[in-house]
């Protein structure tokens, strides 16, 4: 029966359906805020849903000579990965359940949506898509280093805790990790990495509408494209929620007040992402990689060192 409850969690709450609804809502917020920044009115609330449904009805076109297995299989990998991460984070936050080492599983699963874009790109038999895919991969290589480093800060502060629930409990008992200097730095680093993970400006080199006309996704149409869009919406739920859970205190307890606080933190992150993407130009890919391996990694290393010193000497604010 365990598997049935797992399936329920995975497909309905807090998994797929819940994530999809929230993701659509959030992508509406993203578009609305963008519109307001640009002095436009913006779309109605249900626009993301209509977009998806419309794509499902559009024709499917496959590039001639491309491997259909890879071309249509790729979007599914990303969908599976995004739902998995979202469910893990959701289950840890709502039900306080998880398993040993799920933090590592989450980090690996978070790569799957990007991998899906890459596989789709290289399966498209299109040079522009290949360029997009190579950029996406370089971006992953770039941000993954500071991302891992920053996520070690909570692990160090909690004394080697690798469970999401363990990290949450530690925060419920001792206050959020972001309340220390190392935690704040780590949070900043993770927000930057999150921007790249979501493929938002200034890190949207893989899609780069102006030069690659959609890059890795150039050949996609109809339902396959709809799955990519849906995955992105799910990631809009999963990634910020993951950051809130791991670094920023989660719900601060499972009370109504705590949940409201968690939602506010989550929305702050979403709006921040939207604002960053609306006020920055796109970086060139080598600049992006250099940025992540340079400044951001140095920041991340600083936070790890501070956390290590703080834990070793027992200084809480470090």
């Amino acid at each position, binding site marked *: 029966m365990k598997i049935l409850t797992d399936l329920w969690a995975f497909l309905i709450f807090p998994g797929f359906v819940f994530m999809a609804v929230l993701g659509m809502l959030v992508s509406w917020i993203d578009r609305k805020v963008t519109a307001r920044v640009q002095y436009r009115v913006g779309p109605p609330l249900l626009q993301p849903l209509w977009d998806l449904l419309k794509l499902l009805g559009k024709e499917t076109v496959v590039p001639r000579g491309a491997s259909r297995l890879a071309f249509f299989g790729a979007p*599914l990998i990303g969908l599976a990965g995004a739902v998995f991460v979202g469910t893990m984070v959701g289950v840890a936050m709502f039900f306080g359940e998880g398993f040993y080492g799920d933090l590592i599983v989450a980090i690996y699963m978070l790569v799957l949506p990007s991998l899906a874009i890459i596989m789709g790109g290289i399966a498209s038999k299109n040079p522009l898509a290949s360029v997009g895919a190579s950029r996406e991969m370089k971006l992953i290589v770039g941000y993954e280093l500071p991302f891992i480093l920053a996520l070690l800060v909570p692990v160090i502060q909690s004394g080697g805790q690798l469970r999401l629930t363990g990290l949450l409990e530690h925060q419920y008992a001792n206050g959020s990790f972001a309340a220390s200097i190392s935690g704040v730095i780590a949070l900043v680093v993770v927000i930057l990495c999150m921007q790249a993970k979501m493929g938002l400006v200034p890190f949207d080199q893989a899609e780069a509408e102006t030069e690659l006309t959609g890059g890795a996704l150039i050949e996609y149409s109809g339902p396959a494209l709809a799955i990519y869009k849906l995955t992105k919406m799910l990631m809009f739920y999963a990634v910020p929620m993951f950051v809130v859970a791991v670094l920023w205190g989660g719900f601060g307890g499972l009370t109504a007040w705590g949940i409201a606080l968690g939602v506010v933190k989550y929305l702050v992150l979403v709006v921040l992402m939207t604002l960053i993407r609306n006020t920055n130009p796109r970086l060139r890919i080598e600049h992006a990689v250099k940025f992540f391996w340079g400044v951001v990694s140095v920041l991340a290393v600083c936070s790890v060192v501070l956390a290590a010193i703080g834990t070793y000497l027992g200084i809480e604010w470090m």
Partner: protein
Amino acid sequence: MSLLIWPIALPIIVGALVFCAPRGLAKYLKWFSVVAAATTFGLCITCVAEAPPSWTVNGEVLLALDGLGSLVLLGVGFFSLLMTLYSAGFFKPGDISESYYYGNILLSVGAACGVAVASNLILLALFWGLLGIPLYLLINTGSERGNTVAKKTLLILGGTDSVLLLGIAAFFVSTGSFDMLVKSQVPVVSVAAWFGVICIIIAALAKAGAMPFHTWVPDASETAPVPAVAMLPASLDKLLGIYLLARVFLTMYHIPNSVKIACMLIGAGTIVFAVMAAMMQHNLRRLLGFHAVSQVGYMVLGIATGTAIGVVGGLFHMLNHAIYKSCLFLAAGAAEKRTGETELARMGGLAKVMPLTFVAAVVAAFAISGIPPLNGFASKWMVYNGIIAAKDMGFVWVIVLVAAMFGSALTLASFVKVLHSVFLGQPKEPRQAGKQPGILMLVPMLVLSGLCILLGIFAVRLGVNKIILPALAGIEGIDEAAFNQTLAGSWGSGTATILLIAALIVGLIIYLFSTFTRAREDESYVGGEVGTRAEMYNFEGVEFYKTVGEMPLLKNLYKQADAKWYDLYEQLRRTTFYITGWLRKLHDGVLHTYVTWCVVGLVVILWWLLYSYKILGRAF
């Protein structure tokens, strides 16, 4: 006579027969070898199942089998059988000299089995060294490059073999015995013990191909025949090297934390530097060769943590690596056979014409990159947990953990490049749906990729509980209880797989209820260009990470690596030639020079004699 002799003797005897086989029998030799390999595998299974008594001569235990040895013996038998099968399908008549190739293959099988069942260290060293000879002969295929590489391999492996002998001597000094299966757990305090530990670890690392003794692996991968590479450096040498390392860490010595930390750092360095090198390779085989180095890092790291879960993870990774890396080499061989190329720039688009090979390659590539729920992820995940559990060694765990996890992202990056340039991407010439690789080649690939999935989904239930933990039976602190205690409610790959499949079904439903079934084919859109103008735009695998390679610090690093600054063998060679260069100057063939040297030498000897007999001192 113990049953244990047979898995060694049979392949060696048959190999010798194959060597001497007359030319007329050449076309039957492959079947003969397949049967011999299958029989050897059967003997390995019998040995493990029956647990025969050890083979003793004059009270000295020479051959014996315990858990760890059984694991390696089964692995050797299994991979040898698959690779011999593949070889039978891979080579066309006339490609190679059958008697030479299969003779060498069988000889390595026998030697590898010998290492696995040897209990006496001298015997182990004998088989260990014997294994180097067929490898040398297989790499040395006649070309000039093959000759150089074979010499390099022989020198590195032979050199470290002699280091192993020194280590064995030191072990004898500490314990008074050559039996390595006795749990001596020598405390590393005396000079002899330190010397022994360091020497044996060096030999194990060189065989497994860890840094800084790694340089023979990518070179050999590039030159030797593909099935031989898949068998020796990619699977058997890893199994044996890590086997010896595990013996040193678990039974022979009681390893102090400083050695553990040093090994962990070596492992972490191997992971990152080798994978950085792999990313930039343009030759498919060489790229895979560098990954064969990089992956050793995870095994060394896992075993060096000394924690239950780390050791289990390291050994599990050893097994998993042999599975997916040989699968990747076999897929590379199939691609090579089809296109006649090993350069990434000249392949591409093979997924359409070799779908089954493509599927096997994708599974193995995802497994090596640690994509859940495949086997590579399961063992890496255990190694990571082992690292965290080794917190008593200070904050070194942070460094090695970051290196290991980041290395995983880089591995993914270089396999994306491989999948793009070999199987997907834009083909350099239109590929006609032609001949598939034969059934003999497909079966090993599909079996191996199937194992990647199986050992991933049932990582704990099958991989750990049925394979790795029984192999570690009798070793203190590493049993099911210790493992389960660390892992209460652990990564349930089974559940995770069901959930991931559920997500795939959701995706499929979305496909089925849409226009997916009526998909239309059309030319790809290349910025509005059509026909031959569109074909001009081609994104080659060579370009994939060019921008990364041109970044300021890395650029220098790659340049130095190209100039072989980090190649220990090359550095030693250069130093030797530098010194002999000076000596050569002295050998100029002029009589005066020689006479001068003779006189100088005589004076020095005279002075030393006078001084040592206190004649000189008294005179002054």
